[in-house]
């Protein structure tokens, strides 16, 4: 056994450093820009740094370094920079940043959005950007007005001198000749007027009027449309294909083999879509070609029975603690979660124009830096000449951090020598995706008679998440590494995670929520070859189901109240202890109809603590969730209404998975194809959601993902109370 855990954060950090050149996280005001200017200045605006532009007529534009996929990040980061700049975020124009290292995620060291980290990692740097820019404008105004800077104030985009107000724009010409102050003192949170207040989303108007541009809406003069026919079994290659009828179908311009399958290019999308059905392709058989869902489950079980998994983390002496426990009271239970698809509403797409001088990509991607790198690798163009026009993302959930569609569009565009728009169908999305891996988890726990857990062992088997994600991202993160070395590196990473290290993302959440005097977490890697990647809340999406189901099972065994048992095991987790106590009080005060039952769960992820109470009824075997109450501590809530919306949405996303979600395999091929057999929760099935945000002035932590993990176990725990059936498999189905 080895004891080495690489987390998703480490992986992204490491890949950024290995790449070289990607070193400066945030260009603080005053720093020189590296490479071509990331902001295309279209008029005589003042651009004090990569994030802000102020025009003489006092329009302020904020270039948002994180990708807006629904989580409200454009509003959140505009609020943060606006607070210190003293400009109301509602009056700013907020645009997606271009592709440039000045916009690198400070933690990932590459431009990208994920891990619920954007508000957390940009909170201080963007406040500093706002504060320094405001100080610069004060200095400029002082010169122009002949008034000492310390006698000037600011108010919502204006310099205030006594009873006179001057728009910031009046001073941008002078400001552009001055040196940018650095490390200007930041406001005390008690003086915040935008941070912490509810405000409308900056993208609400565009999204309510159909004027928000998504990747699919790109319309480039002369562009043609492409679809790709991919193998039914992931990774299989076309041995041969017959395109004789497809090639002569109406509008068809070309049939092009690409690395992932065969592309059909036509004058219109619908023509490409119809012609693709006329292709006959002979696909190779692969080891995955015989795999079924039943086999996956058996193999994952067998891997844990084989008992040769790799230890990830431990504390205390769990072996001794189990030996000391009354053997009759030790619980040991298996929990299972299936493969899942992300199914964002906007199917994957990308529009690429390659010219002699450069390339322009219009898409919605969570990993701008790697998308740029993939194009650098495939086109041979200098990185600075490749522009990523990142659009609104029609849902991400991790799916848009993968790059296969960027590779496809590049291969097609290079082949047809025209701008190309590639569009995946919903069937493509569900059948040819990257999936949340299936997970078998075995939890063994011992507690004393008062409910203090004395020993804890948590083991997981299944495909590891990071190695495959790394393999997919590598060509973009290391654009200049030759293909042979690239494959070697990806293979090495895969080997490492299968043999001597544990992928931290695959086991995250198996012990961290509670104060455990002794524990062991371990992992058995079982990879059937179905591509996997991050799925909203990653490993937590299944580990919370196992841990929080076990907590209720322990409570029952000890004849304790489930909330009381949890509180006994949170001694050195004061923030979560407070969240659980608050939620416990709310639960104790709830009155529900006779046939409704309450279930509780809590989970820490991405620095945020969430407890949920699900109100559930079961009628003729049908589980109905009526209401979910959430208590959350995410530090300072930058925009409480968006925090609330993220929890509402997380409940719906997680409930879809808890009640319906399963990607199944038959002959290695994904069975599900569209929303009839991969159902998504609809309005008439959706619960009411109440959200309580714990007031806090500590720096903000994640909010996009942490609402997902506790939901499934909260519902399962309620179903147990309603029926006496302990459901240990997802999705939840009554016998």
């Amino acid at each position: 056994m080895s004891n080495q855990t690489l987390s998703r954060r480490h992986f992204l950090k490491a890949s950024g450093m290995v790449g070289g050149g990607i070193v400066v996280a945030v260009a603080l005001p005053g720093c020189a820009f590296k490479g071509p200017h990331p902001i295309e200045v279209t008029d005589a605006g003042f651009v004090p740094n990569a994030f802000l532009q102020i025009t003489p007529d006092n329009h302020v534009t904020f270039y948002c370094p994180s990708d807006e996929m629904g989580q409200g990040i454009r509003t959140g980061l505009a609020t943060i920079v606006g607070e210190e700049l003293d400009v109301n975020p509602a009056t700013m124009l907020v645009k997606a940043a271009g592709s440039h290292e000045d916009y690198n995620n400070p933690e990932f060291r590459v431009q990208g959005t994920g891990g619920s980290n954007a508000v957390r990692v940009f909170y201080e740097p963007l406040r500093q950007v706002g504060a320094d820019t405001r100080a610069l404008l004060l200095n400029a105004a002082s010169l122009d007005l002949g008034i000492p800077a310390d006698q000037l104030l600011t108010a919502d985009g204006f310099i205030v001198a006594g009873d006179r107000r001057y728009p910031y724009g009046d001073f941008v010409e002078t400001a552009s000749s001055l040196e940018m102050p650095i490390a200007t003192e930041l406001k005390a949170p008690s003086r915040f007027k935008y941070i912490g207040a509810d405000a409308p989303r900056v993208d609400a108007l565009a999204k309510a009027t159909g004027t928000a541009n998504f990747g699919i809406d790109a319309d480039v003069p002369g562009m043609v449309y492409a679809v790709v026919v991919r193998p039914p079994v992931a990774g299989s290659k076309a041995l041969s294909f017959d395109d004789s009828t497809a090639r002569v179908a109406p509008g068809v311009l070309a049939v092009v083999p690409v690395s992932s399958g065969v592309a059909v290019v036509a004058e219109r999308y619908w023509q490409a879509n119809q012609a693709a059905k006329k292709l006959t392709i002979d696909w190779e058989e692969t080891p995955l070609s015989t795999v079924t869902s039943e086999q996956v489950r058996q193999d994952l079980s067998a891997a844990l029975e084989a008992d040769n998994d790799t230890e990830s983390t431990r504390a205390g002496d769990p072996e001794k603690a189990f030996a000391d426990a009354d053997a009759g009271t030790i619980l040991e239970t298996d929990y299972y979660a299936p493969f899942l698809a992300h199914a964002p509403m906007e199917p994957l797409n990308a529009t690429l124009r390659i010219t002699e001088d450069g390339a322009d990509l219009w898409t919605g991607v969570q990993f701008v830096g790697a998308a740029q790198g993939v194009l650098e690798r495939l086109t041979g163009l200098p990185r600075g000449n490749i522009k990523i026009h990142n659009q609104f993302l029609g849902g991400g959930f991790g799916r848009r951090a993968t790059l296969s569609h960027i590779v496809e569009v590049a291969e097609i565009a290079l082949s047809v020598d025209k701008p190309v728009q590639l569009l995946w169908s919903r069937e493509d999305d569900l059948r040819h995706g990257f999936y949340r891996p299936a997970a078998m988890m075995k939890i063994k726990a011992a507690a004393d008679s008062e409910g203090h857990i004395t020993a804890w062992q948590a083991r997981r088997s299944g495909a590891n998440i990071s190695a495959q994600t790394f393999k997919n991202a590598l060509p973009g993160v290391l654009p200049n590494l030759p293909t042979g070395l690239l494959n070697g590196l990806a293979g090495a990473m895969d080997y490492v995670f299968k043999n001597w290290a544990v992928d931290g993302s695959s086991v995250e959440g198996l012990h961290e929520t509670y104060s455990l005097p002794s524990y062991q977490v371990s992992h058995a890697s079982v990879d059937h070859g179905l591509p996997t990647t991050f799925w909203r809340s990653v490993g937590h999406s299944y580990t919370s189901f196992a841990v929080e189901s076990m907590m209720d099972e322990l409570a029952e065994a000890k004849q304790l109240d489930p909330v009381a048992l949890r509180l006994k095991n949170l001694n050195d987790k004061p923030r979560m202890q407070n969240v659980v106590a608050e939620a416990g009080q709310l639960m104790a005060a709830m009155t529900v109809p006779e046939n409704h039952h309450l279930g509780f769960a809590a989970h820490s992820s991405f620095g945020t603590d969430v407890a949920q109470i699900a109100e559930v009824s079961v009628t003729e075997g049908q589980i109905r969730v009526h209401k979910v109450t959430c208590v959350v501590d995410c530090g300072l809530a930058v925009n409480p209404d968006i925090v609330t919306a993220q929890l509402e949405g997380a409940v719906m996303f997680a409930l879809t998975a808890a009640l319906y979600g399963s990607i199944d395999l038959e002959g290695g091929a994904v069975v599900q194809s569209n929303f009839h057999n991969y159902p998504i929760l609809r309005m008439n099935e959706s619960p009411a959601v109440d959200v309580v945000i714990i007031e806090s002035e500590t720096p903000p932590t994640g909010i996009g993902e942490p609402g997902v993990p506790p939901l499934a176990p909260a519902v399962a725990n309620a179903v147990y109370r309603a029926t006496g059936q302990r459901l240990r498999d997802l999705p939840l189905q009554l016998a």
Partner: protein
Amino acid sequence: MITFSLNGEPVRFNGDPSTPLLWVIRDDFKLKGSKFGCGAGLCGACTMHLDGTAIKTCVLPVAAAADKAVTTIEGLGNPEDLHPLQTAWIEHNVPQCGYCQSGQIMAAAALIADKPSASSEDVDNAMSGNICRCGCYPRIKAAIMSVAASALSYDAAATEANS
């Protein structure tokens, strides 16, 4: 050739009459507010009005729109002249990713036109053909109900005034 009215303007389409209306609107008439989500009439992202009825246009051949009136999100309202539902959408901070919202609003607009003071059950029934993967349902419903409630109070005021 197929002729129909698009947001009040007469238009002609010369291509394949079996092409779904969605693609004609998006790729030929370049109105991009209506979205592609499933291609099977299962998610409602492509919802438009055909002679005032909400319809899923990813499975509707353009031929079926011949001589009819097609209304898209662009014809319902615009940033300078919002439909009451669009105002309610902004007031309730409804959208997250926003991709499904054109379809949601078009489905809601057909409901409100038909039943200005729609009940909670009416809303559930009318809106359950529209998927929101971000899970904005509580806010979508609240936004529609706020418009329905104002219609209800308008009706009540009108009734009172007429009595």
